[in-house]
Structure formats: structure tokens, C-alpha cells
């Protein structure tokens, strides 16, 4: 009987994205999240006394040039070597793009599979054959699985491959292959990488994406980690998922229906924060919190979103201290005032509100908006407008959303202005 660990998509030293700093933000507790998660992986391997660790690609980010990361990786490999734990790794699309991969100073106990052909390593002491192939270039669109040899008879066969299979949502296509391609090889375990969400594609044989080991932005929510397999008599006896992440990304929604004042809103938010914290197994969380529901306080929230955001952040610091980073506060509430019905009654004010409500999001129809946008484009670094960014100004949806929020802000302020004495 032996155990092994399967992890992928380490993306060492890749930064956490979308965390805007604020006064009480727990900057320190989130430092080096990827490295810490990787250290957790090594600790786990040592603790579980596994026979070997499988790394199914993407150890680094493609454009990351700091060799220090490589040194860190070597050291961690060294730690595994000292405990007699072997490592089998393939290069993924990111690794292939990175010069560091070839220059890496790795101990003899770590094997990086060839990128020119499929290699098979036999471990006679535990009866295992590991078949694997690295990416030679960043873009591999051929079916690498097709080149894998049939299973070694009488051994526990593992296929190590970085692939998007037949396509996964939100992930680019790399080394495409079908499930059948993999099954036909007769392996007992396919250790895949590339997809950042954990997925057991099949359980007979095991075809597994372990997911990344540390979420890096709000689209990578939930527990992240690796898979721990126990093999006995050439069969998988037990499969366990082990969280390794040091910071968890959480997106939650708070229903404000029937909340009638700020205190109640904050109380509901506090409850949500406490709940989300409790479900993170003691890790700090980066929280996106969205407020929904029909409430009489909606206008106030829309009117001063930044004030509201600040009070939520302060509440976060108060509730969870260094264990909570508010990633973003989103307001999606609905006013209790039936504006449309009220507007039908006429009146100058009603007319105005109606006009504001029906303002077109098209920048052309808001005089001066195009100037503002081009000014921003000129002045702000391009990274802020990337495809992944919330601020992709080339997307009509982004502008539409901002205009909608501006409308709500204006309505909110018009409705409460002069009353806030």
C-alpha cells in the first residue's frame, strides 16, 4: 500500500487580483499566499508519508521572470527529497512559456517529463508506472493523449497530462482529447492539470482535475487544494481531497428585503460575514458581498455607495479583524418606492426621475461622457482595462452598468437630499 499526492496549477508567485487596499485591510495576512499554499502541499506530503507527488503542469505563470521563484521551488523540492519523496511533473502551457523551467535547479528525486515524447517511469518498489509528457511550447493544440502508451500490465498506471480535455468553461483549449482517448489506455489514474476547479471527471478509471492550490481572484472561489490517493493491490482504495489554500475567495449575497435602516443592513452583513468566515475552516477570506432585495433603504445605499462600502469594510475589520478582506461591495437592491407608478401621477419631480430612469446608457447620448472616457483611457495604465478587469471600457456592458449605477446614485441623492439635515 502506498499514498500519492496529485496537484496542479500552482502558479507560484502569481499575485492575488482585485484586492483594493483599504485602511483596515489585512495586507500582512495575505502575503505570499501561493508560496504558503505550496508549502502546505509539501508539509502534507511529508506528513502523509506519500511515495510520490504528481504535479500536472503550470508551476509558474508564463510571463513571470523572477528566478527567485525557481529557487523557492527547488528548495521545496529539496525538502521532499530529504524525506525520500519523489516528484513527477509535466510542464504546462505556462511553464513552457517560461524560460525558468529549463534553468531550474532540481534535485535528482524530481522528474520533469520530456516535452518531445511520452516517457514512462517505472517504480518497481511500489509497482507503479507513470506516463507523462510536458508541453514543449505554450500553445499545444494536438492531442497529446493519443501518444501515450498502453498500460503496463500488472502495474498501477498513472497518466500525467496538462489538458483542457474536450473543453472546460473559462479555460483555453490546450492539448485537447476526449475522455475515451484516456480510457482506452487502460490506466488506473489520470492526473490532469489546467482546470482550476476541482473535478472528478471519471471514477473508473480515475480522471481527476485537482484544481489549483490557491484561488487568486474572485472567480476562483471555494476550497482549493490537492488530491490524496491511497493505492492498495494495484487499485485506488481511497481518494481524499485536501485543502491547501491559505486564503479563501468567497462571494456571498445578503438579502435586505424588509431591512429598514442602516443598523439592520449592517447586522445582516455582519451575520453573513460571520457565516462565511465560519465556513472557511479558519482561513482568512477575501469576500465579495452583494446586497439584494427590495428595501426602503435602497436609495440611501445607491446614493452614497462609497460610504456604504467603507462602513462594510470597517464592519469587516471589526467582525473578523485580519481574517477578512472585503474584495468588493456590490449593491443590487431594489427600492420599495414604485417609481414607475408614482411617476404616472406626474409632477415635475416625477418627470425628472422618469427622465433619469430612462437615460440611455449609450455614451453618445450622454453629452460629455465620451470625453471623460477618453481622458481615462489616456491616463490610466492599460492593465486596468484588461479582459479580466471589471473596468473593461471596451465592453458596452461595462458602460451600461456604470450608467445604471450612476442613475441609481442620482435618484438616491435626489430622493434623500435636503432631508438629511
Amino acid at each position, binding site marked *: 500500500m502506498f499514498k500519492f499526492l496529485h496537484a496542479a496549477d500552482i502558479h507560484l*508567485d502569481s*499575485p*492575488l*487580483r482585485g*484586492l*483594493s*487596499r483599504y485602511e483596515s485591510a489585512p*495586507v500582512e495576512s*495575505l*502575503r*505570499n499566499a*501561493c*508560496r504558503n499554499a505550496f508549502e502546505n502541499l509539501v508539509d502534507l506530503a511529508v506528513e502523509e508519508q506519500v511515495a510520490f507527488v504528481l504535479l500536472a503542469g503550470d508551476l509558474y505563470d508564463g510571463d513571470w*521572470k*523572477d*528566478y*527567485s521563484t525557481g*529557487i*523557492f521551488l527547488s528548495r521545496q523540492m529539496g525538502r521532499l527529497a530529504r524525506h525520500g519523496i519523489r516528484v513527477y511533473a509535466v510542464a504546462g502551457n505556462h511553464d513552457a512559456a517560461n524560460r525558468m523551467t529549463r*534553468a531550474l535547479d532540481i534535485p535528482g528525486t524530481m522528474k520533469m517529463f520530456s516535452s518531445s515524447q511520452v516517457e514512462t517511469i517505472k517504480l518497481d518498489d511500489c509497482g507503479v508506472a507513470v506516463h507523462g509528457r510536458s508541453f514543449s511550447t505554450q500553445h499545444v493544440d494536438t492531442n497529446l493523449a493519443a501518444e501515450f502508451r498502453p498500460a503496463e500490465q500488472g502495474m498501477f498506471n498513472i497518466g500525467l497530462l496538462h489538458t483542457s480535455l474536450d473543453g472546460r468553461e473559462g479555460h483555453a483549449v490546450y492539448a485537447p482529447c476526449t475522455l475515451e482517448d484516456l480510457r482506452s489506455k487502460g490506466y488506473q489514474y489520470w492526473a490532469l492539470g489546467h482546470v482550476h476547479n476541482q473535478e472528478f471527471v471519471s471514477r473508473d478509471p480515475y480522471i481527476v482535475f485537482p484544481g489549483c492550490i490557491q484561488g487568486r481572484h474572485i472567480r476562483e472561489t471555494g476550497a482549493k487544494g490537492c488530491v490524496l490517493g491511497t493505492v492498495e493491490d494495484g487499485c485506488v482504495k481511497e481518494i481524499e481531497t485536501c485543502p491547501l489554500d491559505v486564503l479563501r475567495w468567497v462571494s456571498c449575497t445578503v438579502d435586505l428585503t424588509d431591512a429598514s435602516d442602516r443598523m439592520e443592513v449592517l447586522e445582516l452583513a455582519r451575520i453573513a460575514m460571520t457565516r462565511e468566515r465560519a465556513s472557511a475552516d479558519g482561513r482568512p477570506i477575501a469576500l465579495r458581498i452583494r446586497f439584494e432585495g427590495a428595501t*426602503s433603504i435602497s436609495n440611501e445605499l445607491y446614493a452614497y*455607495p*462609497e460610504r456604504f462600502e467603507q462602513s462594510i469594510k470597517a464592519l469587516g475589520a471589526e467582525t473578523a479583524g485580519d481574517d477578512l478582506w472585503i474584495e*468588493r461591495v456590490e449593491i443590487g437592491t431594489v427600492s420599495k*418606492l*414604485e417609481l*414607475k*407608478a*408614482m411617476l*404616472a*401621477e*406626474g*409632477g*415635475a*419631480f416625477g*418627470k*425628472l426621475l422618469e*427622465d*433619469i430612469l430612462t437615460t440611455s446608457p449609450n455614451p453618445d447620448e450622454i453629452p460629455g461622457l465620451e470625453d*471623460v472616457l477618453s481622458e*481615462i483611457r489616456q*491616463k*490610466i*495604465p492599460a492593465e*486596468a482595462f484588461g479582459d479580466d*478587469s*471589471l*473596468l473593461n471600457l471596451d465592453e458596452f456592458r461595462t458602460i451600461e452598468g*456604470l*450608467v445604471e449605477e*450612476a*442613475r441609481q*446614485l*442620482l435618484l438616491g*441623492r*435626489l*430622493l434623500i*437630499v*435636503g*432631508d438629511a439635515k
Partner: protein
Amino acid sequence: MRIDRLDLLAYGRFTETFLDLSEGASGLHVIYGDNEAGKSTSLRALIGWLFGIPVRTDDNFIHDNAQLRIGGKLRLSNGRTLEFIRRKGKKGTLLDPRTGEPLDDSVLSPFLPGGLDEPLFKKLYGIDHSRLVEGGRELLNQSGDLGQALFSAATGTAGLRKLLSELKDGAEALFKPRASTKVVNRAITGFKDSKKRIKEASLPVAEWKRLQKELSETVTAIEQVEKQIKVKSKEKSRLDRFNRVKGALAERRALMERMEALGEVLLLPEDFGETFKSAHGKLQWGMENRSRAESRLARLKEESEKLKVRSELLDNEEMILALYKEIGGVEKAIHDRPQQDAKRRLLRSEAEQLLKAVRPDLALEDADRLRPLTNHKKWIVDLARRHSLLEQKQENTENGLRHAEEERAVLKEELGRQLESSLDVDDLKAAVAAARKAGNVEERLADVQKRAFEDNKACKNEFSRLGRFHGNVDELLNTAMPLQETLDTFEKTFDGLSDKIKDLDRRREELSEDSERVEQELNALLLISDAPTTTELEDARKVRNKGWELIKRRYVVNLDAEEEIAMYAKDASLPVCYEQKVGEADHISDQLRLASDQVVKRADLETRKKGLKSRLQTAVDDIEKVEARRLALEKEWKQVWKPIEIEPGSPREMKQWLLKVEQLLLNVRSARLVSAEVENLTAHCNSLRESIGAQICKSDQTIDLEGMSLEAMISLCEQRIAQEDEALEKRRRLEHSLNRVLLDIARAREDLASIQKDRLSWAEEWAQAITGLGLEADAHPERATEVFEQLLAFFDKFDKSEDSKRRIFGIDQVSEQFKEKVRAFADSIGFESKEQEAVAIAAQLNRELTEAREARASFLKLESQEKETRAELEDAELTIQAARGQIAGLRDQAGVKTDDDVEAAWEHSKTLRNLKKQLETVERELTRNGDGLSIRELELEAGDLDADSIRQELERVSAELEDLQANRDRLRDRRQMVQNELSANDGSDAAAEASEEAEQRLADMVSGIEQYLRLRIAALILEQRIEEYRQKNQAPVLARAGELFAKLTLGSFAGLRDELSESGMPILLGVRTNGMEITVDQMSDGTRDQLYLALRLATLEQHMHKGEPMPFVVDDILIGFDDNRTAVCLEVLSEIAAGTQVLVFTHHQSVVDLADGLKTQAGVYSHRFD
């Protein structure tokens, strides 16, 4: 929507107060109340009623929160109304005024469109003074911007300009293209910095490899250089050593040569020189001391011979000192003597005067004869005192006697006036005691009478309530009632029978229900299936068979049966009819077969129906039987009661009745007992009255006892007894006083007699005491005392003068004795006194003694100095001898004869010792510098080297070595540098951290820009809307507002106009009647307020017609308006009131008065809270 009525049911200080606002088509309603209590509360109530009572309210000071209620009635323009009550709370606060049940909140929706809430309502349909002022100020701040002015007035939003600038400022605080401190600009800078840091902190792969290679090369180079350094170092150290020791070696050789040259020399101890020198020193010192001591001794001798010591004085030292001491006393005595003499003469003349006053017949010298009299002093004083005591005592006693006699007369008179009483008090007391012992008989009697009356009355009532019995109470007492057991038996039997009837009834009901159910089922069955019976089948078959018979007869047998056929077939032909009948029979048979279930069920149901019917009949019969039995039992029951002529109820009732009868009888008996007690008490009371009355009559027949209560009579008697007792007591006291007075008189008389006796014996004694004083025997004690005092004073003075005389004598004697003593002494020592006074001699002696003492002291001092000097002389001699001996010893030690030879030997010894020491030093130095080599080895090594070229050689080797070392240090620095560089990047997370920060800055930027865009877009939209609004509404609103403005300013302005400002913005202008145009900032505050009001009302009017009108609530905007303006404003409001209900809340009476005087089309209605 309008408000028809507002009910302040329980709110603030109001309870059940109603405000009727239903008058007029819509109407202007002026609501007056004093400032806090009336006006504001009612306005708050109105808002609270429509939109809910605030969580925190101050209007709960009379009615608590749970009791607060506001009600009223709303009406839409289509006539639909809603009445509701609002309570305080979170949910379900609307109540139906009729049922008090909660109403759904949605009932309000048609009246308050779109969930209109309180702030919005106030904003759109309300105006108060502060908003008016704020509106005016806003107009000023907008600098007359027409669009903003119209817009603010239309929306009731006073802070429009503030809102716009808030949006713009907010955006600017976040981002400005050409700033650096704004939030987003800072984030951009931070982002760029972080990017730079990533680059700086990153370790490129090639760089890493280069460093590794450099490190290994450097390490190898360092190893090689170190090897070379080792070789060179060895060489250098050899040269160094030679260089170091070469001087020492030469020196050593020189020293050894000098020692040899010195030859044989005796080595003297190191301290030899010192010892020799000190011995010489000592010798010299001794000789000097000796000559000094000799000269001093000679001088001392000379001095002591000069001194003179007078031993005759020193031998009598004590005597001289004693004399000298006495001088003081003697001088004082001589000084005092004249004073003593004067004193003596004064006392003596005083004594003479005193004696003359007492006894002029006697001379001073004979006065001593009188001295024995002075012993009588105590006696005379005592007698004088006794005399005055006796006088006083006699006077007191006489006074006492006189008083007692007067008192006796008074008492006797008083006693004579007291009368003897004839009354026998003891009888009276006995009678009263007897009456008291009986207690308060009258009260008890009254109580008992009352109780008897009440008891009797209660019994009577109870009896009359009892019913059934026709006789009186006494008859009831004597009537025998049926026994309890009889009643129980009847009750049980009756109960048994009625239970049975109930059971039977229930059974009958069940049976009839069952039979109904069966009937229904049967009917249902018949309805759905129309199931035929077998009887029907048989009937059909019979008909069919008859047809067949007829066919057979007609067609087979050919018999005539036309008539029958006609009957059978009626209208149809026979075959057709037969066929039909066959079909019918078959149909029935088929149905029977098909509906066999129903048939069976029907049969079953019919059977059950029959059975139920018969069981029902049985039940009815049973009921009748039991009923009969019950009637019989009732008859029997009545029979039981017949003898006592009572109409009985049910046994249970009769049992209750009997219980009541018993209770009644008990009460009657106890009432009768009470009545008997009344009689007893009455008799007792009367006997007491008689006995007391008799006693009273005895003492006083005039009193009318009729109608007097027993208690009063007893009190009267007690009063009489008290009077008698008091009189007796007084008489006793008088008699006692009289006895005492008589006794006092007798005692006083006795005292007077004894006093007379005492006076006689005193006179005798007195005569004896004063004999010799030269007075009459009966001289008054005071006179005698005075003379006696003078006598005593005389003796006092006389004695004192004698005393002085004795003293003077003593002084003279002392002085004489001293003189003799001094002269005797002076003569004894041969002192020449010449003719000096004794005192002066004594003083002279003393002075000379002092001088003799001083001379003796000097002599003693000189003697001791001489002794000391002799000792010094001896010491010096000894020292000289010792020094000479020592010097001789030292000469022997050095093996020479003379002192000069000693010096030379000592010099040689010192030189040898010095050389030896130097050699030792040199050899030690060689050992130290020779790197462990022996002197001999060093000498050998030195032999190979050329001392002259050593310096050059050494310089060469040193230079080579330095070069090598410098090279090595350089390489080491290099290695360190490379290592540092490597370790700086060695797995460091600096770059990763910078990249983390860059991402955070990026996120800052994104969120900042998002908010920036929201604010900018909001501002753009708002500006756009304001402009649009202006374009659309400028003309109509401005015209109407101009009219209103003219009115409100009482014609001071003619209207309003718009114009483009210099910057091309449309601005608002006021036009005076003379055509002058006034900009907004030129207007006064009040005018601007009115301008805002005009714009506000104009917009309100303009939009009023478009939908359901809402009431316009005006709160005290007329503050600060004078009467004229108030009237105009009310007029303008009443114009608005033509279109919608206008509610004006005010706390100024004048506003109400002005409103009452207003005649308008819409109607003005005033309401007051008092």
C-alpha cells in the same frame, strides 16, 4: 386625494379631538394652534397618520406608545373614500375604525401613489419656513441660473446646487488627469512604482547562471593565491627574524668582551653604597646635636638665676585669700549702716504716736506693761462675734413669733367657715358600685334588641321565600316532613326511568337515521342503475309470451283473435309489437344479468329497510311503556306530600326544599332565644334605675329623674361622691395646719427666754476681757476692737525699731574685728602697712601673692627644660659611638683600609653588576624574538646571511607578499559580492510582493475609476435633465411665476424675465414696474424667499392638473410676512386651493383673522385647537 377628516384620537396632548377638513371642493384650510402643543403636534399627527408614527416620538407623554391612535378619512377625486386609524408599531399599523382589526397596507396605495413615503411627500407636497428660506438662499447661490432655479422649485429640492457640486467634487477628489494626490492618481503612481520594483527585484535566469559561474571561478582563484602566500610568508618570516635579532647578537658579543676586560672584582651587596652613606650621615648628625644641646643648657641656667620667688607670701596663701574674700562683706556692712539708722528713727516716732492714741498716760519705755493684753486678741474677737450672733438670733425669733400668731388667726377664721355635710356617702357609693358591676346594661339591651329585630325579620323573609307551605311559621315548626330515605328512593327511581327513556330515544334516533341512510342508498341505486327486479322480468316475459300466443293463434292455428290482437298491439302490427316485446324482455333479462350486483344490493337494502322499520316500531313501543310507568310513579310521589298539603316538585327539588326548611327552623329558634334575652335585660335595667334613683332623691329631691338614662344617673351620683370627698379633704388639711402653727408659737417663746440668759453671761465676760484697755466695762465691742487693733500696731512698730538698733550694733562689731585681724596678720609676716585702711591692706596682699605665684611657675618650667636638654646630650653621644663602629665594619667587608678605598671598590662592583644585567636583557630579547630558536642556532643562522643586504631582501619579499594578499582580498570581496547577490535573490519574495502590491494598486485604480465614472455620469445626466427641464418649462412657468411674484411682492415687481448671461447661461431677472431689471443677487433675502415661493407655486399649479391632486401642506411660511403680504400670500394659496386641497398650519392668530376676512372662490376655512 384630499383629507376629509383628521382624528387625533390619542396623540400628544390630544384625546378624541377631530379636525373636519371636508368643507369646500378642495379649499384652503387654515389650522391654528399654539406653537408647540397645537400646531406642530397636529402637523406631526397628519404626517404620522399617513406614513406611520416614528419609532422615537415625543408625543407619548400622555398616551403611551401602545395607546397612540390617529384616524381620519381620505377621499379621491373620483369619490372613493378610505377611513382608517394608524397605531404606532412596525407592521400592521393600519386599523379598521369600525372593527379595530388590522388592515392591509395596500389599502392606502390608491391614495398614496407608488408607495409615496414621508420624505418624498414632504418634498413634493409640503413647504415650511426653513425650506422657503433655504430655497431663497439656493437661488442666490445659483447666481440666478434659470435652469437650476426652475428645477429646484419644481422638485422642492433646495440643495440642487449642493448636489451638483457634491457630485463634481466627489469625482475630483478621486481623479484628475493632471493631479498627483487624488486617490486614483496616487494608485497610478503606486502601480508604476510597484512595476518598477518588480523589475528591480527580479532575478533573470541568465543573471543567475552568470553569478553561479563567477562564484565558482572566484573560489578557485582564491585557493591558488593562498598557496603562494604561504611560501612567501615563510621566507619573509626568516628574513624578519634575522633583521630583528641581528643588533642583539652584536650587543651580546660586545658585553661579553667588556666583562672579560674588567677582570677579578669583588661583588658587593647591592645596598652596600647606601649603608655606607647612611653610617656617615648618622655620625655627622650626632656630633651636631651634641654641640646644640650644650649651648642651650648654659642659657637655661642663666635665666633661672634671674627669677625671685617670695616664699613668705606663698606660705600664707590661704590666709591672704580668706582676708581678700571678707573685704566684700565688710564693705557692704559699712555701706548699709546709715540706712538702718534712719529706718530705726522713723519706726520709733510712729510707735510713739500709736501709744498716745491708746494710752496717753504711758511713756514709751513703760509701754511694755501693756504687752500681756495682746494675748486677749482671740478672746475679744470671739466675744464680739458672739455678741452680734445673739443680737441677730433674738431678732429672728421675735419675727417668727409674730408671723405664727397672725397665721393662727387666719386658720381659725377659715375653719369656722367650713360646714359639716349631712350626706351618707357610703350608701351612695355602694349603689353606684352595684350598677357599674352590672356593666353597660343599656347598651347591651339596645344591641340585643337590634339583633332580635333583625333575626325576626330575616326569618320572616326566609319563610316567605320558602314557598310551597301555606301555614305560618309556628305550624311549620309543628309539621312532620317526609323522611330523607323516602325522598332518596323516589329520586333514584325517577332517575332510572328518565335514563331509560333517554337510551330508548337515542336508539330510536339511530334506527331512524339508519333507515334514512338505507332509504337514500336505495334511492341512489335506483337513480343510477334503474336496476330492474325479477318481477319486472317476469312481467315482461308474460307480455312477450302472450304475443307469441297470439301469433301462434293467428298464423299457425289461424284462429281469430283480432280483438285481443288489437288490444295487445294497439296501433302497431302484431309482429312488430311482438318483436318489440321480445326485445323488451331480453333487455330486462340482459339488464338483470348485467346489473346483478345492483340487484343483489337492492334486494339487500330492501331487506335491511324492512328490518330497521320493525326495530324502530319496537323502540317506540318501549318508550310508551316506560312513559306510562313514570306517570304512575309521579302520582305515588304526590300522594306522599298530600297530608301536609304541599304541591311537590321533583324529588331533588324537594330535597333542597327540605334542607332550606331545616335551616329556617334553626334560625327561628335562635331568634326566639334572642327575644327572651331582651326581656331579661329590660327587667335588670329597671331595677338598677330604681335603686340609683332612690339614692339621688335622698340628697336632692329637686332633680327630675324621668327620662334620664341609667348611665346619666350613675354619672350624677359619681359627681356627688367626688364633691363630698373633696370637701372632707380640705377640712382635714386646715386642721392640720392650725396644729402646726400653735406648736411654732410655743417654741418661739422658749427660744426668747434662753437668749436673754446668754446675753447676761456675755456681758460679764466682756468686762473682764477689756480691762486694761482703758475703756468702760460696757464699751461697745466694735469700739473695743478698734482700740485693741491700735495697740497691736504700736507693738509692731516698736518691735521693729528695736530690731534695727540691734543690727547697727552688729555692723559696727564686724568692721572692728576685720581691722584687727588684718593688722595682726600684716605684722606677723612683716608687711609694711604704713597707715593704710585694713581693706586696702588686704587688697595689696592679694595682689602681691598673685605676682609670687607667677614667678614660681616660670622657675618650674625652666627646671624641666634643663632636664630635657641633658637627655638630648646623652643621646647624641650614643649615636656618635654607634656610627663609628658601623663604618669600621664596612671597611672590613670591602677589604680596604680607608674610607676612600671603600668608594673605589664599590664603583667596580657596580660596573660588573650592570654588565651582567645587560647581558641577561639581550639574551632574553634574543630568546623572545628568535621564533623558538636557541641563541646558538640564531648565531648559526646569522652566519649565513649578509646583514647589509637584508633590508633590500626583506623589502622585496614584503612587496611580493603584499601583492599576493591584495589579490586574495580582492578575490574574496568578489566572492562575497557574488554570494550577496545570489543570496539577495535566493528565493526572495520581493518581486512577488511587489507584483502583489501592483495588483492591489490596480484594484484601487479600478474601484476609484468606477466611482469616479458613476459620479461624473450622474453629474452629466443631472445637468442634461436640468437643461431639458428649463427648455420645456421656461415659458409657461416663468409667466405664471411672474404673476405670483408680482402679487407676493405687493406690486413692487411686475414680473420675471429670462436673459442670457455673459457666459451664455440663461439667467433669471426680476422686472420692476418701471421696467428696471433686478438680478437675483441684487434682491433682498425676503424678496428672494418670495421669488422661490412664486416659482414653487407656479410649478405646483402647472403639474396639478396632470393626475390625482395631492393636498399641499404649508407650515408657517408666513413668519416674517407683514399683514399685507400675509393676506396676498393667503390669496395666492387660495388660488392653488381651487385645484387641490391646501392645508396651512400656523400659530399666529393674525393669519386666522386675515384668512377669515378673505373672500375667495375656493373657500377659506379656519380651524382652531384651543
